[in-house]
């Protein structure tokens, strides 16, 4: 079986996915990154360190877990215990290694959804699927009621845009 360029790339960088337990769900793009994707955006990049990229107003621009949690709190997420699926809530998971937070994934349709760097969005059933030395492990979790993702109820998901 011939692998697609996306599959070759994904499995090269994420060895835990070589079991094939994932699905590519987008084209590759550099228009947004994982941090933005987890916050529900796909038209800009979030980055605490790069002054050219977005970071919520009033949140420290630093690559630390408190800063990341504060950033997603502007989108009404609150910290929670784990990444287990909960009725009526959507969750995000923040990955970190010894250098600090590196990646964020969001729960979508019962699975996890990640934007992988400059590459593709994928759906992965387990958080462990994308653990590696660059991303580290999923170490912090946040949740919010799914109603915040309902455009009939909320025009903007995040406080900083109001």
């Amino acid at each position, binding site marked *: 079986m011939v692998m697609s360029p996306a599959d070759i*790339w994904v499995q090269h*960088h*994420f060895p835990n996915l070589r079991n094939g337990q994932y699905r590519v769900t987008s084209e590759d793009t*550099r*228009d*947004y*990154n*994982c*941090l*933005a994707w987890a916050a529900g955006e796909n*038209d*800009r*990049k*979030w*980055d*605490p*360190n*790069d*002054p*050219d*990229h*977005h*970071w919520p*107003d009033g949140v420290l621009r630093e*690559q630390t877990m408190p800063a990341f949690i504060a950033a997603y709190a502007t989108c009404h997420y609150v910290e929670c215990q784990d990444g287990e699926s909960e009725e009526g809530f959507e969750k995000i998971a923040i990955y970190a290694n010894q*250098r600090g937070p*590196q*990646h964020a994934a969001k729960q979508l349709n019962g699975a996890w959804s990640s*934007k*992988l*760097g*400059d*590459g593709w969005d994928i759906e992965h059933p387990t958080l462990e699927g994308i653990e590696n030395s*660059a991303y580290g492990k999923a170490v912090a979790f946040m949740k919010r009621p799914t109603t915040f993702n309902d455009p009939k109820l909320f025009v903007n998901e995040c406080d900083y845009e109001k």
Partner: protein
Amino acid sequence: MIDNDLLSSMQGRLQKPTKPSPYTSPARRRTLIGFPPELQGAFGSGQTAFAGQVSGDRFSGNVAIFPRSNRIVVNQNGVFIPQAVLGNDVVVASEKEPLRAGGIRVIVSAQPRVAQAEAQESLELEFKSLAQRWRNETAHLSIASEKANNFAYQQIVGMGEKVLPIIFRELETTTSDWFWALRAIARDRAPVISAEDRGRVRRIAEIWMEWGRQNGYVSG
């Protein structure tokens, strides 16, 4: 009173090449092989103190030197260079056995613009190699500083201002994370990205391209 040592030294310096070049032999005195016809007439064989082939680390080709007019012409790989430079930043035919013309050690440097073009081409090749390595090693990362914390990327930043035209050419076709490198090189000259535009990579690329045009790093 004649200083014998000085005389001996001068005689050594004035020594003609032991093996006469075919370019200056009497039978072919009026023909400088490898040079265009207009040059033959323009200089005339009688003024040619030396003509021949030289090769070194940075130059190889045919050379003719005209000491009376203090000019040198070279023909490198079939490219005629009418005004090469005699200078210090150069290539020597051979350190052990330097060519001599009228007792003057012949040092040859290709014309500056040719050397610059070669240097630019070399820089571009190095950039492409480093950029590819950087992409291979960091394309799966999301945070700009993590991507920039890569040895290949840091070498690109270390190239400094001279790499800016190459980065801008790259920016015309890709939205890779070159903003970090641009900002690191431009420093306090870097454009301000408004809060509205932050994170929008196509818009940021436009802003940087405009800055590149205004500062002469982008042609056209």
